């Protein structure tokens, strides 16, 4: 059994390293620190362990051991459920909710990262084994195994890196105005605001942007209500919102211009020093949700429509 440690330990280290490197706490404060960190670190370690013992099990012709990987997959689906449930439960305590689509996206990401830990530890141990077959020096094989693991990590990280709003749309400043009680942004009706006091707050502290999709796929992405909710949540989180729980009229609103598919969003900020550039940046950096992605232009109908448009 001793001979397999050379496969297992580097794999374990690389897999755990990959998972830990992916854990970072930013403005989202997710995973939560410090307890959330510990549980994800442990799960990552377990994933890496499963990945690194898969190859030795195969070499020993213990094919039954491979079924443990199926068990692992089950386990990590459970991680997704755990994340989803946790975020769902705290949703009502959020000033501006994340929305179910954003939650699903976060949960999916956490599941995928555990699979990444399995793959990287498996690849590392396989690379070391291949080096040993070719009678390469022990230390040299460990080193090359780790290098291969690192390359695969960088590759996967790039592959699962999501897009941002900035990749599919332009974000521009928009103008807030009132037509009687009706709040309009760039001429699109947003909401009817009854009280003069509230209207004054909108005019003095309100910021608004127009999100202009770059192509027809982007129009569909942005029409997704979950995607809009994610934009609102992120903007409110980063800029600070002028609202308390009993003032629902100051909830950020993202409406769609039904004529051209542009999204118009307004937010009332608390601090007077928050300017429009900050809002534009926050909106541009919002992740594109996997679940809102659609490619209508690839369909038969989409291609026909495109041809028609060229004719016109």
């Amino acid at each position: 059994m001793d001979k397999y440690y050379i496969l297992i330990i580097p794999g374990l280290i690389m897999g755990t390293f990959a998972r830990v490197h992916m854990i970072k706490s930013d403005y989202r404060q997710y995973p939560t620190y410090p307890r959330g960190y510990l549980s994800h670190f442990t799960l990552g370690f377990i994933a890496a362990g499963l990945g690194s013992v898969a190859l030795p099990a195969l070499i020993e012709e213990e094919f039954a051991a491979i079924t443990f990987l199926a068990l692992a997959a089950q386990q990590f689906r459970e991680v997704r459920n755990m994340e989803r449930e946790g975020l769902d439960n705290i949703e009502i305590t959020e000033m501006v909710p994340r929305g179910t689509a954003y939650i699903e996206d976060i949960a999916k990401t956490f599941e995928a990262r555990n699979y990444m830990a399995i793959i990287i530890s498996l690849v590392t141990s396989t690379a070391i084994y291949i080096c040993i077959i070719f009678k390469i020096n022990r230390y040299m094989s460990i080193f090359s195994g780790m290098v291969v693991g690192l390359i695969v990590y960088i590759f996967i990280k790039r592959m699962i890196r999501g897009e941002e709003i900035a990749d599919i749309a332009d974000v521009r400043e928009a103008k807030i105005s009132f037509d009687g009680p009706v709040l309009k942004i760039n001429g699109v009706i947003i909401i009817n605001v009854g009280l003069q006091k509230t209207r004054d707050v909108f005019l003095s502290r309100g910021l608004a942007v127009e999100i202009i999709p770059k192509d027809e796929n982007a129009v569909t992405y942005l029409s997704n209500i979950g995607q809009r909710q994610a934009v609102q949540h992120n903007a409110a989180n980063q800029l600070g919102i002028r609202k308390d729980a009993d003032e629902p009229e100051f909830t950020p609103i993202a409406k769609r211009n039904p004529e051209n598919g542009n999204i118009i969003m307004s937010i009332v900020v608390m601090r007077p020093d928050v300017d429009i550039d900050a809002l534009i940046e926050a909106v541009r950096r919002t992740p594109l949700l996997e679940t809102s992605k659609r490619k209508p232009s690839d369909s038969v109908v989409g291609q026909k429509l495109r041809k028609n448009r060229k004719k016109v």
Partner: protein
Amino acid sequence: MQIELKDFIVAVATINKDMVSSGSLVPIFYAEDNKHLDELSESIARILNSVVHDIGMGTYIIVKH
């Protein structure tokens, strides 16, 4: 999960004394003047976590969204 009523008129505040709705379950509050109307609807909205909408003719509806 939290279950609550949404998109529901919780009250009507108005200075239009002609506004009567017999048999309706929505309470109607009559205000003295526009200033009173604003104060009245604001306090109702704060108490019930809802939003004031101006539907014209001196009538405000308070809606839970």
